[in-house]
């Protein structure tokens, strides 16, 4: 999967300006950058949720908009930030929607096993029968992630998945992302605000500033004192912990 010269303008102002990069298959890629740098918009264009003004998004050799929607939904899943449902929907029913591309409304035995596993992965067993509008923001977020896991796609796109999560669940989520990649061979693309999560759990990092790519490379290449200071305009100190460059800023 790669993107070439993608551009998005709102009211004539380019939010994403001629961005090109290739997504390393079977790896975790994090998109970082300050607010308004265009990370989420890039994510939206990668996933066909946001229309491009120009450029190309190639998914497995075919332009992404040419894919049949149903087929694409078996290979690429996206979770955005804005999810509010007014329906009376239980956690389990929500997770079951992840199987929709495969079996429509009718769940098979295999679907149910996959749903069980996704619920266990996200530690949702205790409240799988609760309505999602009665859960806390963090619990709801985990339910949605379980749904994406149940969708069982090669590519998983998560837009700020650690929002609303406390340190325990955010760290757990990042570990799950790692496992999805290492154990199941999935390609995961994340938009993250926490640089240290990005540095510790990703293979590659793409940093955006003002709608353009500032740096793209392995974690060690991108997370340096100079790069981060340039990107975020504050002072950074980098420490190597467990072989990963973690940053301190103040």
């Amino acid at each position: 999967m790669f993107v070439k010269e993608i551009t998005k303008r709102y009211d004539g102002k380019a939010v994403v300006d001629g961005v090109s990069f290739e997504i390393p298959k079977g790896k975790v890629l994090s998109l970082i950058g300050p607010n308004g740098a265009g990370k989420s918009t890039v994510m939206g264009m990668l996933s066909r949720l946001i229309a491009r003004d120009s450029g190309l998004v190639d998914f497995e050799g075919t332009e992404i908009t040419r894919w049949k929607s149903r087929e694409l939904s078996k290979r690429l899943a996206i979770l955005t930030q804005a999810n509010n449902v007014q329906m009376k929907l239980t956690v389990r029913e929500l997770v079951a929607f992840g199987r929709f591309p495969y079996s429509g409304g009718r769940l098979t035995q295999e679907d149910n096993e996959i749903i069980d596993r996704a619920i266990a992965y996200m530690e949702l067993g205790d409240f799988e029968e609760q309505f999602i509008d009665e859960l806390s923001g963090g619990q709801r977020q985990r339910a949605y992630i379980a749904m994406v896991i149940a969708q069982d796609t090669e590519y998983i796109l998560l837009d700020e998945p650690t929002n609303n999560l406390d340190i325990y669940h955010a760290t757990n989520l990042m570990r799950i992302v790692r496992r999805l990649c290492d154990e199941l061979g999935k390609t995961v693309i994340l938009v993250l605000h926490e640089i240290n999560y990005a540095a510790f759990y990703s293979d590659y990092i793409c940093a955006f500033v003002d709608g353009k790519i500032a740096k793209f490379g392995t974690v060690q290449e991108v997370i340096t004192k100079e790069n981060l200071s340039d990107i975020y305009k504050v002072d950074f100190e980098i420490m190597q912990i467990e072989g990963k460059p973690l940053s301190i800023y103040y």
Partner: protein
Amino acid sequence: MKTHKNHLRLLILLLLVLLACAGYMTVGVHFENQKLFAYAMRIRTPKLIAMLITAFAIGSASIVFQSIINNTIVTPCLLGMDQLYSLIHTAVFFVAGSGSFLAVNANAAFAVDLAIMGAVATVIYSYLFQKTNHNVLYVLLIGTVLTSFFSSIQTTLTRVMDPNEYDTLLTDLVASFSNVNSAILALSVAVLALVAFAFRKELALLDVLTLGKDQAINLGVDYDRCIRRLLLGVTLYIATATAMVGPLAFLGLIIANLSRQFLRTYRHSQLITGSVLFGMVVLIGGQLLVERVFVYSVPVSVFITVGGGVYFLYLLLTQRKA
């Protein structure tokens, strides 16, 4: 387990509907007099059928519409869709005149209205959703403005109309439960059935659509096309109901939300069935009361408007807290 409980609930509703129907067809009928009996049946049967059809059309259209715009306090009639139909109907008469075949043939007039309504309403409402970005408060606000806008134009048209033409128009424009437009019963049933059949694929996607646009696309739904088609279906359903019994602003709101509260599920097969059954109970039960207890002094639409208004406020207030 929840599904079984809901099946039981729907069964209870169905029994209530049958009870209301039986009550409506028997209370006050003189069984001993052959002629009076036949007369009563001839009056009541078309009304009963019209009410059943109306409940079906408004009940299902309201649930579908709410799911399209992902909000449960909005219904097509609150946004003036029924007023738009009245306006179109009047305008067609106004242009064609009372001497035309449209004035004589109710079915032809209905077909022309439907065609115009389908085109105009789809354009107006999809533009409205797009412009307001599905923001429900804006949609409601503009919808309310549209409602009075449509009805003002309609009133203006009737004012400048030839009195004779107005007279012809009046008899079938202000269709009500005491004055059911029974000429178009057969065609209405055909339209409703045809629309449901043509859009059956989209109806099956309703459950997924309620997850919102992003999730629906993620799960492989061709969102924009699906919404467009469902909206067209909704306008045709509302048009049919309005043509038969006139505008009923709050009925959809009441029955759709009763169904949602009663069944507490996301499954549209159940929600729509519930809403339709509630509609039948409210309409037929209400009409029974109006005819037998209040002896026609208050039309059922007044009860629905008053009750619905209060219920609407209640929903607005309780939603805020959540």
